[in-house]
């Protein structure tokens, strides 16, 4: 079945129809990438507005309602439109089938459908965030806590419906990946030869499949609550506002691992390539992904340690939360050990990967006082939580995404970016990011509550430092994206395998042909056989 057009590489075809109706996983991945980065920039602008407002005490550029809208925009768009689809829908879509030696995902049409559904959900959310006629901009925070979200005059219903629609997209992608990994592996690609990125995607997909329906039903109930006053979450009607928190976090905590697990997978791919060494503790890393996915379902209660939940539940959830720390620690130790006696090339993907480990140890360790009951009472809902969360999400997922983009860039676009500018961008980001969120740990410990439009004088210096850091952070992104866009347009042609990886995606041309492989490869060894004579 080698017709003329199927031999050409996937980027060659131009025109709306060839992309928007394409079922090719690579094109869908690229379309996702463009879409999520667009929303990343929008949400980033909202973050800049928030930090500009907090430069000094008192009102700076927007009023208190505007501020509440700004942080809601930032949170809702970052979480639902950027970071949940984040790595799986972009790099996952692009790499997964090639990595396991398949021509496409199991359900190519469903894959495209989930992209369309994503666009639909995104359109609904953007439309309703900025206010459908007659309703004001959403101001509930991305968590949509009842009863405020029931009473708020802003467009809660359309946002909720938008998130519900996005949930479908997320479920379909997860389902597609799980079936693909189960059924589409090339001959010889056994479970224990799978690249760790695939293991991470598999674990994340399981969470997507199992957690998303629960938030779906929760959001439907919230809509019903606002329309029919059904009284699930309203105290005066016999309901329980804390029930919403429980339902919400039953999804939204596991979803944190949908965001971080794929980033961990990216790091596990990069480390062996740039140290020319087999990954250390393959099975420990693979199974700890599954362990994290499993335990993630039983820790949602740590968001409710001061919510009025029963004392008994509080300590059970505290114990379970500590259980998540163990597989996470195992991963970190194995990554670091991979570098031992390697031949380490600190190119930009590797810099990002190492920065991921560095920042993720901070993110993970600052989770300890939040999991500990006695100290969480003080730190809960302060800037300490904000900083911890951003260390996992930006220091973890976004850095992981950037690591992956820099790593697979030559494969995806067949072009090479300027390594020098990539490193400059990396250091700007690294400095800006730490300057933004380091002060916030201290702020939080001093008692600065989150979601505050204004603050008392004792917090002024640290807030100022944080805002300056945030601006550097913002400029760093522009610089990094500028470098990559420049490379897409004008970069020099990339080699087939510039970094010397042994994984399957580097055995096909850059950019890959539309059907990936002329013939399905036969796999005889795992993908991490560096430094030995064995090859895949």
């Amino acid at each position, binding site marked *: 079945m080698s017709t003329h057009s199927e031999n050409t590489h996937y980027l060659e075809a131009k025109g709306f129809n060839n992309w928007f109706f394409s079922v090719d996983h690579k094109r869908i991945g690229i379309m996702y990438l463009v879409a999520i980065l667009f929303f990343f920039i929008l949400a980033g602008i909202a973050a800049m507005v928030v930090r500009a407002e907090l430069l000094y005490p008192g009102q700076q550029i927007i009023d*208190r*309602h505007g501020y*509440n809208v700004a942080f809601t925009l930032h949170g809702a768009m970052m979480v639902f439109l950027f970071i949940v689809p984040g790595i799986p829908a972009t790099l996952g879509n692009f790499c997964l089938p090639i990595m396991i030696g398949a021509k496409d995902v199991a359900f190519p049409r469903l894959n495209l459908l989930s992209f369309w559904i994503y666009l639909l959900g995104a359109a609904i959310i953007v439309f309703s965030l900025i206010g459908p006629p007659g309703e004001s901009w959403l*101001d*509930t*925070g991305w968590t949509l*806590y009842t009863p*405020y979200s029931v*009473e708020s005059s802003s467009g809660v219903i359309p946002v909720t419906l938008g998130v519900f629609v996005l949930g479908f997209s997320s479920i379909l992608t997860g389902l597609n990946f799980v079936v693909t990994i189960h059924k589409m592996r090339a001959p010889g690609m056994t479970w224990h030869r799978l690249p760790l990125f695939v293991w991470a995607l598999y674990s994340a997909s399981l969470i997507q499949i199992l957690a998303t329906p629960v938030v779906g039903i929760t959001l439907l109930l919230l809509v019903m609550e606002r329309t029919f006053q059904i009284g699930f979450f309203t*105290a005066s009607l016999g309901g*329980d*506002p*804390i029930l919403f928190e429980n339902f919400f976090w039953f999804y939204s905590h596991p979803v944190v691992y949908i965001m971080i697990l794929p980033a961990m997978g990216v790091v596990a791919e990069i480390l062996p390539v740039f*140290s*020319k*060494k*087999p990954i250390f*503790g393959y*099975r420990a890393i693979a199974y700890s992904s599954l362990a994290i996915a499993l335990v993630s379902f039983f820790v949602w209660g740590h968001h409710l340690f*001061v919510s*009025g939940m029963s004392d008994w539940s*509080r300590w059970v959830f*505290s114990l379970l939360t*500590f259980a998540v*720390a163990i597989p996470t*620690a*195992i991963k970190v*130790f194995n990554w*670091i*050990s991979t*570098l*031992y*006696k*390697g*031949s*380490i090339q*600190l190119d930009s993907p590797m810099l990002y990967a*190492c920065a991921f*480990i*560095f920042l993720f*140890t901070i993110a993970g*360790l600052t989770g*300890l*006082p939040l999991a*500990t*009951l*006695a*100290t969480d*009472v*003080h730190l*809960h*809902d302060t800037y300490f939580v904000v900083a911890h969360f951003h260390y996992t999400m930006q220091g973890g997922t976004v850095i992981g995404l950037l690591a992956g983009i820099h790593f697979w860039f030559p494969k995806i676009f067949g072009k090479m970016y300027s390594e020098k500018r990539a490193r400059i961008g990396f250091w700007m980001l690294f400095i800006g990011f730490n300057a933004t969120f380091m002060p916030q740990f201290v702020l939080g410990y*001093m*008692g600065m*509550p*989150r979601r*505050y439009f*204004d603050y*008392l004088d004792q917090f002024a210096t640290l807030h100022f430092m944080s805002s300056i850091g945030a601006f550097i952070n913002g400029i760093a992104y522009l610089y990094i994206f500028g470098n990559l866009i420049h490379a897409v347009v004008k970069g020099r042609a990339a080699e087939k395998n510039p970094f010397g990886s042994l994984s399957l995606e580097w055995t096909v041309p850059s950019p890959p042909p539309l059907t990936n492989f002329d013939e399905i490869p036969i796999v005889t060894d795992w993908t991490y056989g560096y*430094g030995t004579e064995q090859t895949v």
Partner: protein
Amino acid sequence: MDKLFWNGLTDLGARVDNVQIFIIALMGVCFIACNAVLIYFMLKYRRKTDNDVTSTVSGNQLLEIVWTVIPAVIMLFVFWYGVTVWGDLRTPPENAMTINVTGVQWAWRFEYPDGRIEAEDLYVPKGEAIRLNMISSDVLHSFFIPAFRVKEDVVPSQYTQLWFQAEKEGSFDIFCTEYCGDNHSFMLGKVHVLGPEAWDRWVRRVPDPNSIPLTPVQRGEKLFSKWGCAGCHSIDGSPNIGPTFKSLMGRAESMSDGQNIIVDENYIMESINQPDRQIVAGYPKGQMPAFEGQLSQQDITDIIDYIKSVE
């Protein structure tokens, strides 16, 4: 807040700080250990030539076990340490003085056992255990005194509590830490810890007769006479221009438009605010003035409490 740790304001707060310091030390050790190794490897094993000989080691069972078990033991210890201190945070002493706290958008209201009410500022005696019994009258709030290391959400459907025992005089910030709408960041207050004399003076302070602390029923009775309600409404069941207040609450009444209702708080509130909307059959419209906007919600609640007490 002058000191970040061990400000000595409450004993329990100092114990929380002990846990915190312990965890910070643990975090520091782990962070430095991991990243020192990471950076050391990054520098020591930098690629020198394209043909560097690398190790082919791909795992070590013993190491895996070691770095699974050791963190697990440490985690268990931290958990246990946290739970023991937290247990005391959750158990107020039996003799604690209870102050009722209501969170409203966007202020705190404190009601003392003697009926005295304070808004935004909480006054407590030094060295005495204070238990706050809290409820919200609208959305979720969260009551937070950073200096004492205590926090608990304030929920509309249920009472929540926290307690502290301040050991030093002074004024400390109160924050709302659960997002509650436009003025969330202005839902602030102060807790003033008073020494024995200052506390005595504060308790006995009687600035003018109108602010003598009264119970809600007493306050309602005063409003009842102040607004001249007795001119039309009897309290002993005798007929008058308006229906009697005797056993009014819960009574079945037929309305002039033919409806039958059971008198409840909402009906009384409506009748105070807009009397002509639903008139009891047999009574003329237009007699009673509408009090909408003239009485506060608190006044109405007090009057309702008073009417409930007339039997």
